[in-house]
């Protein structure tokens, strides 16, 4: 993989892509997440770290439109302005979830159709977008399989015949083929062994940068956060306890919890 830069990352973008205001999610009395506000700009990669149960996946589900927040708003740039995705009709939001942003789930089974071929999984997204020419869709699907380093000869195989790492790469191709402006990732390397992780991380790093897409990545792995993200939010008990540039937060943590996290890893 080359390490070429997309010129789009050089442009100083004046308009935010995503604006999150005071988002909270409650499960009865229990706090999932609370008082979350931030702005994400085109091409920016935001990491959300914290241990299991800190509310980071809950937050991600609210941002991606999979869950409705109990309070607050999630504004997405759409048609020249910022729209609250939860004020939109369900069908419109669903359509945006397939075209404007994408979601890479921790478990590829949640993001793939296991009984549809690899080519079909990728091509389906292009058909959602309105592409109709079968030959062109198949060619594009094949190209995307190569980009995520799956041999084109596997295009007609079903994902259940793939290894875990291949399934995850296929899921990424399925999400990126429709060229979303924003990608949400929930522990994208969770459950993969270390060598496969390294390969996937490099792939993600290059894809995100070359395509200039913005991303929100939830992870408990600080090394993953350092490699992939520009900015970091640290969550504990549903709240953001510290945020800033990724290298700042990891190298000079100020909050007690972040200091504990940063000192608990061997080398991040």
């Amino acid at each position, binding site marked *: *993989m*080359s*390490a*070429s*830069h997309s*010129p789009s*990352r*050089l442009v*100083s973008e004046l308009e935010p892509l995503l604006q999150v205001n005071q988002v909270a999610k409650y499960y009865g009395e229990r706090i999932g997440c609370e008082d979350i506000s931030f702005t994400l*700009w085109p091409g*920016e990669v935001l990491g959300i770290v914290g241990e299991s149960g800190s509310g980071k996946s809950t937050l991600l589900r609210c941002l991606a439109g999979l869950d409705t927040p109990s309070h607050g708003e999630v504004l997405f740039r759409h048609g020249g302005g910022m729209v609250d995705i939860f004020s939109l009709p369900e069908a419109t939001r669903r359509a945006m979830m397939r075209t404007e942003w994408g979601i890479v789930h921790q478990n590829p089974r949640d993001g793939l159709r296991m009984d549809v071929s690899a080519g079909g999984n990728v091509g389906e997204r292009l058909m959602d977008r309105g592409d109709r020419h079968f030959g062109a869709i198949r060619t594009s699907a094949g190209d995307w399989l190569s980009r995520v380093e799956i041999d084109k000869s596997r295009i007609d195989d079903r994902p259940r015949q793939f290894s875990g790492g291949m399934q995850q790469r296929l899921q990424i191709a399925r999400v990126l083929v429709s060229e979303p402006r924003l990608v949400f990732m929930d522990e994208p390397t969770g459950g993969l062994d270390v060598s496969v992780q*390294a*390969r996937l*991380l*490099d792939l993600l*790093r290059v894809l995100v940068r070359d395509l200039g897409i913005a991303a929100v990545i939830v992870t408990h792995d600080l090394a993953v956060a350092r*490699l992939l993200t*520009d*900015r970091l939010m640290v969550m504990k008990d549903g709240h953001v306890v510290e945020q*800033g*540039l990724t*290298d*700042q937060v990891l*190298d*000079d943590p*100020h*909050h*007690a919890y972040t*200091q*504990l996290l940063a*000192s608990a890893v061997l080398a991040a």
Partner: protein
Amino acid sequence: MIPMLEAKQVSKAFTLHNQGGVTLPVLNNIGFTVHRGEALVLQGPSGVGKSTLLRILYGNYRPSTGHVMVRHGESMVDIVHADPRLVLQVRRKTLSYVSQFLRVIPRVSTLDIVKDPMLGRGVPDGEATLRAQNLLARLNLPERLWALPPSTFSGGEQQRVNIARSFVDPTEVMLLDEPTASLDAGNRTVVVELINEAREKGASIIGIFHDEAVRDSVATRSLDLTPLKVAA
């Protein structure tokens, strides 16, 4: 005399919450200005806070008080308080930090690592490749290694990859934390030349060098952090 970096009343104390909340004061009220084409060398015994100061200038550590103003294009940006997006832009174009350690990215070749910052600044791929190759050769890194990721290289080889990456397209302000440590004499001479060439082309250098000979051949000024006085 164009000021390129101004540190104003910079103080830093580390509070270790998980070790009984103990506070370690490191820097107290540091201030200086570095102009275009100057090389300021930070001096003082180990532990006096030279590396901490350098990291604060880069925006990697957050000072307890103070400002760090860096000339970025037409404006002066306060690295301490600027929006993270702006700090990243300043780092991409204007301000670089060079240590003796290379942060290896899995699977990325040596040549691509060296080209990467140039491509990020819009240098065409062909030119970036040529310049990267020339500098790797000048730093005596064998050509057979260029296509390989440096994860398996020796410490000294990785260090030279890191130096090539930083000096192939020098930024206007460069922060150097012991870039020549543990290099052999031949390569150390090349690095000293690179630093001086960058400075003569207008770069401002702030650095830490333990090797006295290197320090003397690089510095135009020095700042001793121990008793806090600026020597001429």
